[in-house]
């Protein structure tokens, strides 16, 4: 399944359209036969980016594997809101073990399937940024290095949300969290080097790495399906806003995701064996302020005494991404 970038800014809507596409390019979600792997009834917040991303990703994976999928899930929001014991909203075989071991559990499942000759059944490991970039890092790197046949999906909402919005190594600079409060000389999270998991995944030279957001859901589906065509270690990093933790309106989840891409703060690309193979271009780079303003976690940068230096610093991050990944489209002639 390929990705056709349909831009809807002309029509003024944000609908994920299918009517303009050939049937085989239409969204999995628009299909009556979609599996609803993450079924309705789960307890996610209104506007949860992770619930949206997970539903799309797993249904796309099921579609690509003729419904032969097993998922291992890290501790976190997704795990908690999807399995309020004694109920579950998962319609696929699913296991939650611990916070930091999801990649290893998936390795074990894949090994069991291999031994039993079940080549048709595939394995997905999924978790939030905490379970991926921090506590899950060791197991993840081990899985990458062994090239185990696992697709690891990280739903990045940039903090430990389920425990009350604490900072993770994925939290962006200046963002307010419960452990990086908007107080003191440098309110919000520090300006570190960041921890770019997609680049780290690429440094392991695994067969497939991709980033995506929930603003371009068909792009997300296409990437998951592309990943399922490949055997070996694969990694997809999905930007998923959290209205509660970020302090934005529940109906702005997709808009915020579009803004993070259009500002250059979150490069959307694919890579294979350590080389970038495709980049989703930005038509017009938006200033980071447009992305930061709607989120209360950045509120301390605005108001009566705006922190222009900080905003400029964040802008520099975005500009560096644009340069590094060649995010801007070439000017039309």
């Amino acid at each position, binding site marked *: 399944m390929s990705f056709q970038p349909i831009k809807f800014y002309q029509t003024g809507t944000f609908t994920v359209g299918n009517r303009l596409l050939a049937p085989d390019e239409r969204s999995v979600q628009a299909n009556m036969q979609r599996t609803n792997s993450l079924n309705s009834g789960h307890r996610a917040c209104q506007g949860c980016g992770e619930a949206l991303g997970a539903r799309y990703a797993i249904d796309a994976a099921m579609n690509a594997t003729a*419904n032969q999928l*097993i998922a291992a899930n890290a501790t976190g929001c997704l795990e908690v809101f999807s399995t309020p014991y004694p109920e579950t909203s998962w319609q696929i075989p699913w296991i939650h*073990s611990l916070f930091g*071991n999801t990649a290893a559990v998936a390795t*074990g499942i894949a*090994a069991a399937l291999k031994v039993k000759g079940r080549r048709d059944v595939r394995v997905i490991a999924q978790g939030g940024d905490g379970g991926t970039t921090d506590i899950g890092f060791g197991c993840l790197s081990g899985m990458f290095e062994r090239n185990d046949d696992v697709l690891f999906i990280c739903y990045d909402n940039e903090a430990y949300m389920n425990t009350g919005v604490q900072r993770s190594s994925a939290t962006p600079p200046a963002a307010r969290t419960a452990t990086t409060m908007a107080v003191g000389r440098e309110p919000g999270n520090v300006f570190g080097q960041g921890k770019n998991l997609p680049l780290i995944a690429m440094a392991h030279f695994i067969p497939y790495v991709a980033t995506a957001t929930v603003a371009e859901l068909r792009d997300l589906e296409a990437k998951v399906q592309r990943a399922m065509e490949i055997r070996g270690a694969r990694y997809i990093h999905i930007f998923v806003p959290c209205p509660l933790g970020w302090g934005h309106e529940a109906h702005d989840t997709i808009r915020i995701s579009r803004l993070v891409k259009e500002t250059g703060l979150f490069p959307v690309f694919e890579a294979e064996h350590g080389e970038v193979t495709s980049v989703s271009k930005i038509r017009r780079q938006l200033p980071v302020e447009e992305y930061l303003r709607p989120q209360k976690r950045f509120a301390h940068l605005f108001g009566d005494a705006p922190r222009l230096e900080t905003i400029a610093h964040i802008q520099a991050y975005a500009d560096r991404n644009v340069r590094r990944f060649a995010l801007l489209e070439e000017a039309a002639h």
Partner: protein
Amino acid sequence: MLKQIEGSLGVAEAVALCRPEVICAYPISPQTHIVENLGEMVKTGALAPCEFINVESEFSAMSVAIGASAAGARAYTATASQGLLYMVEAIFNAAGLGLPIVMTVANRAIGAPINIWNDHSDSMSQRDCGWIQLFAETNQEALDLHIQAFRLGEELSLPVMVCMDGFILTHAYERLDLPDQAQVDAYLPRYEPRQVLDPKEPVSIGAMVGPEAFTEVRYLAHAKQMQALELIPRHAQEFRAIFGRDSGGLVREYRTSDATTIVVALGSVLGTIKDTVDEMRREGHRIGALGIVSFRPFPLAEVRRVLHPAQRVVVLEKSLAVGIGGILSANVRMALSGVQLHGYTVIAGLGGRPITRKSLHKLFREAERDELQPLTFLDLDWNIVNRVLEREKRERRSGPIAETILRDVGVVAARVA
């Protein structure tokens, strides 16, 4: 078939005969030879079909075993000491999820200070995690217990730890009777999981259970492990019928029936104890030994049955509960609730200090004369510890104990004030 081989190789051969499907391991002394042998067997194809995974940490090792077992594969791993601690979160997880993983723990001390030699602190630290814990007295028993472990674990849907003394057993060459595949197949049926991850019948495993149901879940875990008290003797009988020898069971008595003093212990030290008992018996002492094989579940009834006719019990253990005293002895005490006899705890062999017949002779005779303290540290150098304690009375400072001792011995290894 009789072979003169290293204990580790015997265990590896036994595990291989159990047809494991996923073996994952991280190296740590003194378990290394077990997994190296298994790795070689898988690589040459001698053990197939089997996936052997070199993981990047013990935490990962147990997690891979969890995933594999949940997906219906017979899973095995091995570790010791620090490695066991590193996987603690996953160990509890495996027990809580009811996954019949079998793991060898090559008993080794836990640091700090780092120590690679044998004692039981590692297994003991995990005695409450919900795993079944079996202690092997000899390499033959170690080999046999692994076969019994797979059977027991899969029948109860519980993970099983087979504990064998690191170096003392793992690295010792002795005569072993290796079973053949037909015997093991007759004893150990295919793994048929109760709940398995399979697209044919999707299940969600590992949900968060709240206050309204948690107590029931935990009670059932306890009740399930208690069922092992019945199963273990039954399996041991079946084992005897198929393999022709006694291995396993809950406890093992040695000359206890008319003994006035009974020594209780776990693991390989029982061999030395038995030799000492024999020597003392020749001199007319009424002394016997009780070896505990199943430490978890703890066979309260059996221990009570054997010990209550005696006048005194000496629990000799390679473990220490800092801040209170003995661990094994506390468990034994529970079995003797209400029974009047003298009980002595002897902490011995910590960090691999040899337990000698000479010391045991002295110790047991002191016990018989009821001259022992309630808590004794066998072969402790009082000179050294008293010097340190004296100095600390005068000047209280913090710092690592091992390095602090050196100041009194006169060798300053590091600038520890």
